[in-house]
């Protein structure tokens, strides 16, 4: 297996830049990390997850649906000329992407999403490159290629034909025999958070969480919406028109179920008219409603909502409270 230095990875990325629309982890002027082009900041493979919603590459905060110019003709958006290559997803981000691929393809195929997603290439970064030297879970699949850090270098592991084609183009100064020790470290990562949200899910589904709990959590929500806007599996959007110089542009933009107007109808009827119902919905959606609909949780424990929430009611935090208060073992 090829083992590459960061410089070699950067050289590889430059070599494929003519073929791909690159979205790689970069460090911005303010010290934060984001996905961007190689010319937008220095490559930043170390440090773990990108703070912003990683799936925004394919489901951006705002995107044009169509344009209608004064001649009356509707013009749909055309896919980009080059396929997108994303580097820097974590294993959890790859799980999230797999789910929203399913969500956007089920029943009606969302062409706006798939015109970006089709043909794209996903490279997960994992291993000893987390924040403060922490270990990032190895995906072991669900992406085209994985760059697994051994502390100094990144070992390339391809999982798909697209990944293998790209791996061939990588020029590595070293080869390694296996990554068994790194896989073992990944397998031994604690799964306490997973057990907690699974237990919280069971308790919500079993109606063990009383309404008073959601009132308490809802009271803490300041409706900043940062949880929804950071979550890779939040897919709600609003649609609006803008008119300028005779041209109408229809766009869609992320929306948040934490906002009062999210479900309000023209009649004034609002099925989610209070903070407690909205907060319950945010948690219930990922831990209960989607379990019923899709057969699995749709929180993959990326931790972004917990990082972003100013009042500490992200999904992991709320799940811990639910388990502490309402699981049988802890019931008094």
């Amino acid at each position, binding site marked *: 297996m090829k083992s590459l230095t960061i410089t070699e990875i950067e050289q590889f990325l430059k070599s494929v830049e003519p073929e791909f629309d690159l979205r790689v982890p970069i460090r911005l002027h303010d010290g934060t990390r984001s996905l961007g082009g190689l010319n937008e900041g220095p490559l930043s493979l170390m440090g773990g997850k990108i703070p912003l919603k990683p799936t925004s590459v394919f489901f951006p905060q705002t995107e*044009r*649906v*169509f*344009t*209608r110019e004064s001649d009356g*003709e*509707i*013009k*749909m*958006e*055309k*896919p*980009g*000329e080059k396929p997108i290559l994303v580097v820097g997803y974590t294993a959890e981000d790859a799980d999230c992407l797999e789910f929203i691929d399913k*969500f*956007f393809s*089920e*029943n*009606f*195929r*969302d*062409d*706006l999403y798939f015109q970006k997603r089709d043909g794209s290439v996903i490279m997960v970064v994992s291993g000893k490159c987390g924040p403060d030297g922490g270990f990032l879970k190895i995906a072991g699949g669900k992406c085209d290629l994985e760059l697994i850090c051994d502390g100094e270098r990144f070992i390339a592991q391809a999982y798909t034909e697209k990944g293998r084609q790209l791996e061939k183009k990588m020029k590595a100064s070293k080869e390694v025999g296996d990554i068994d020790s790194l896989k073992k470290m990944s397998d031994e990562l604690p799964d306490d958070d997973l057990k907690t949200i699974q237990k919280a899910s069971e308790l919500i589904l079993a109606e063990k969480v009383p309404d008073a709990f959601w009132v308490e959590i809802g009271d803490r929500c300041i409706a900043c919406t940062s949880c929804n806007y950071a979550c890779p599996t939040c*897919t*709600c*959007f*609003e*649609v*609006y*028109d803008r*008119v300028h110089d005779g041209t*109408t542009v*229809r766009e*869609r933009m992320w*929306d948040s*179920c934490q906002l009062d107007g*999210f*479900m*309000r*109808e*023209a*009649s004034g*009827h609002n*099925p*989610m008219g209070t903070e407690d*119902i909205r907060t319950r*919905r945010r948690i*219930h*959606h990922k831990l*209960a*409603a*989607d379990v*019923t*609909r899709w057969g699995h949780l749709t929180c993959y424990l990326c931790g972004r909502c917990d990082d972003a929430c100013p009042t500490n009611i992200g999904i992991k935090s709320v799940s811990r409270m639910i388990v502490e208060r309402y699981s049988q073992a802890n019931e008094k």
Partner: protein
Amino acid sequence: MAVETKTEKDKDSASLYRPVFCRIVRISDLTPTEKLFRIEMPEGRDLNQKPGQFVQVSILGLGEAPISVSSSPTRRGYFELGVRNAGALTNALHQLKVGDEVGIRGPFGTFFDVEKFKGKDMLLISGGCGLAPMRSLIQYCEDRRGEFGKTFVIYGAKAPADVLYKDELEIWQGSDIFETHVTVDNIPQGTCYDGHVGLITTLIPPLEIEPEKSIAVVVGPPVMYRFVIMELKKKGIREEQIVVSLERYMKCGVGKCGHCTIEHLYCCLDGPVFWFNEISNLRGAI
């Protein structure tokens, strides 16, 4: 991103979110706040809706809104929308004239499953604007007479001025296909009205029905469902014999935007028409 101009050929099929522009061919006043729009698809095509489905109506510059189709698919060559002037888009719709165009996407959503209703006695119960989607089913029963058993049309409005489809209600009242009962909640002073006064729930107890062979379809404002369904249960109708159509805010109509969820269901995709026993235990459904 570059922009592509679609040809006429692929105009209607290119995108999930692309509206088809359709011409308004007739506008009728139903009440001071409701109008009925008759609309024709391009090239004489049919909408191919089923009773109870809805369309997303676009007015460019203002956006889109979900509106129930209020005509039956048995009436070919056009479809109709009964629209209350309740928001920015519906207000703009009310300003349009015959010959103007609106964007249409759809039809979307589940429908009144008329195949399962065949041979059954039907209680078609609607309140307020609920008569708009219900009318698609009433017209269907009218056009397919003989396919259904005894059919009751039960309608309630707030006041006489709010009664929708007055002319058709009169026809249905005089028809041998339907047993039609209309009520209003109250009569404002100075109003001339000699019909039944009282909540819609007062119309249900006197009905002579055979509960075992009946299907009840209920469409109306959120407050209506619980009380109407309580009365239906008193008549011996079970939850699995009741069909409801629910209203929610829908931006996309295709189960993506997330505004119309009812727990694990999407009202635009899994509804708006539900068998009541499928949603009766879901929080916030009614």
